């Protein structure tokens, strides 16, 4: 099987390496796309990372990309011809978009979201739509109405969530880059559990237009990749100011890769002790301590710090995110699109029936939680209180960044767990996000990169930067990546 081994080089190439192969005429985008489509066909029965694969569109896009790479038309970009996945909560014109919910099965958006338009304009080749927790609500990809995704490192385990399909596909070499969304860790947590790079940029840098809304003040789009450089390149393509998202920032955009070779020598990096929670697994703690030594060896000044309000972040998040979700998901009424209920006697009964049947348990739970927190008599005690504590958490980060260039923490308290292990107790599942949630509350940039192994499973290392300090976390992550080999580990699948 010589072709098999030749192709495994291809499957685990970075996007930059693939682009170099395009430029050297070693392979075309059409050839690379066909190879990925074959790989997807072979692996999907064991992974389930895609909800929809679009082979004809992908080949047609790859043909266009090949022309562009050979000098016809517009100048190629870093992503021209690169086969990618987008999470199935990104609106894609004429391609079914479900958010992994029964309520949206069969929904064909009449428009592309802005991130998708930016990717298409850049010439990226979209292979299909990634599986996720229903409406991005979950930390294990087990709430998908299209079945769970399996972790390529051990298919009995979860890939993390909610961008579980994205994490699994990048780790298994089913695509070169996947785009996800991160409301409380939904890019970084699956990146950590699947052993790839994942970044949530500063809130407002990537337009949310066309991203099916979950928690609007927290949601942010970002990439999952096999290298930090690919993450920077991907962010350069998807970030843009957009008049269709009034929270998209108008600030001038820098090159996300501008400081990538800067190193960490002399950088002040804080370790917030509250992130090393009691429940942290010994293997994760050991990997983290080793990573701190690596960073010190590279010349970083590492010191412990304290962010005491971290202990309240989970409560703040699980009030604010469900409150926003309960409002955002009120649009799914089964009238203009999605699952309808045609036998009901009245319009109100039709809506109640469609939502009762169309939403899964976790989505219902969050809508109920949010509806309760916003309801008369409870608003001040829950929603307003959470928003006030949110202000204090932001301030605590702002103060920390007077002393530190970046913070470093484990991405998750544990490695990938077994499918079914945490579905009985919703609150236990919520604890998976304890290290990632505070970042969304404060709207900060944060990256998770491969930072060790524990019992044969990947461990994530998370850098957090100040608002708009995206290039700083990329710089720190790239320095760590150059000094370690973790990113070169791939699952045997």
């Amino acid at each position: 099987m010589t072709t098999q081994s030749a192709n495994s080089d291809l499957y685990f190439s970075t996007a930059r390496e693939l682009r170099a192969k395009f430029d050297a005429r070693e392979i075309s985008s059409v050839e690379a796309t066909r190879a990925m489509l074959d790989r997807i066909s072979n692996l999907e029965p064991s992974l389930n990372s895609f909800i929809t694969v679009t082979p004809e569109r992908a080949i047609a896009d790859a043909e266009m990309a090949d022309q562009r790479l050979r000098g016809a038309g517009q100048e190629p970009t870093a992503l021209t011809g690169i086969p990618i996945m987008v999470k199935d909560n990104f609106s894609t014109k004429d391609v079914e978009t479900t958010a992994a919910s029964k309520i949206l099965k069969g929904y064909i958006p009449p428009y592309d979201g802005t991130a998708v338009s930016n990717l298409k304009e850049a010439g990226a080749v979209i292979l299909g739509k990634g599986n996720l927790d229903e409406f991005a609500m979950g930390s294990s990809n087990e709430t998908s109405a299209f079945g769970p995704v399996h972790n390529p490192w051990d298919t009995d385990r979860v890939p993390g969530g909610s961008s579980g399909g994205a994490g699994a596909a990048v780790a298994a070499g089913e695509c070169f880059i996947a785009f996800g969304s991160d409301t409380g860790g939904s890019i970084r947590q699956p990146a950590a559990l699947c052993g790839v790079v994942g970044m949530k940029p500063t809130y407002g840098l990537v337009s949310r237009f066309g991203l099916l809304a979950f928690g609007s003040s927290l949601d942010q789009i970002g990439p999952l990749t096999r290298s930090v450089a690919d993450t920077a390149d991907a962010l350069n393509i998807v970030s843009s100011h957009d008049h269709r998202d009034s929270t998209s920032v108008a600030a001038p955009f820098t090159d996300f890769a501008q400081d990538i070779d800067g190193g960490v020598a002399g950088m002040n990096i804080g370790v917030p002790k509250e992130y090393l929670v009691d429940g942290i697994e010994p293997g994760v703690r050991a990997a983290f301590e080793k990573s701190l030594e690596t960073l010190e060896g590279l010349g970083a000044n590492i010191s412990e710090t304290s962010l005491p309000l971290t202990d309240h972040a989970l409560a703040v998040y699980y009030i604010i995110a469900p409150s926003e979700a309960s409002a955002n998901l009120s649009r799914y009424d089964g009238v203009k699109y999605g699952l309808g209920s045609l036998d009901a006697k009245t319009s109100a009964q039709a809506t109640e029936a469609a939502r009762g049947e169309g939403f899964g348990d976790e989505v219902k739970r969050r809508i109920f939680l949010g509806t309760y927190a916003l309801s008369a008599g409870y608003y001040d005690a829950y929603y307003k209180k959470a928003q006030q504590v949110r202000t204090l958490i932001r301030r605590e980060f702002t103060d920390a960044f007077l002393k530190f260039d970046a913070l470093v923490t484990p991405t998750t308290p544990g490695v990938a767990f077994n499918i079914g292990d945490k579905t009985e107790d919703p609150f236990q599942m919520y604890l998976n996000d304890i290290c990632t949630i505070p970042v969304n509350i404060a709207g900060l940039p944060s990256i998770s990169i491969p930072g060790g192994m524990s019992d044969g499973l990947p461990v994530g290392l998370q850098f957090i930067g100040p608002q708009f300090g995206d290039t700083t976390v990329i710089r720190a992550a790239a320095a760590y990546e150059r000094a370690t080999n973790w990113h070169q580990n791939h699952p045997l699948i």
Partner: protein
Amino acid sequence: MDPLTPKDVEHIAQLAYIKLSDEESEDMRVQLTNILGHFASLSSVDTDGVEATGHTTDSNSVMRKDEPQPPLDRDDVLKNAPDRDGEFVRVRPVLE
């Protein structure tokens, strides 16, 4: 906090327009009570005089000129409707 009652859950279900079976309602009551119990510690944080944060970009209302833009294709939009009559979406009776 006091546990939620079945009546509380029924009230939330009405507000949220979601029909639950009896079994789902009871599970929801137990789980919400448990989750809300974990939030009780928030009341210990002193937030006197602290402004609420709605989102983190510090921008206020963003205005644009009221200029017509090309609309979405009507047929593309309507083809998603569960029940359609020509160029209209058909709904169940609003008044009983």
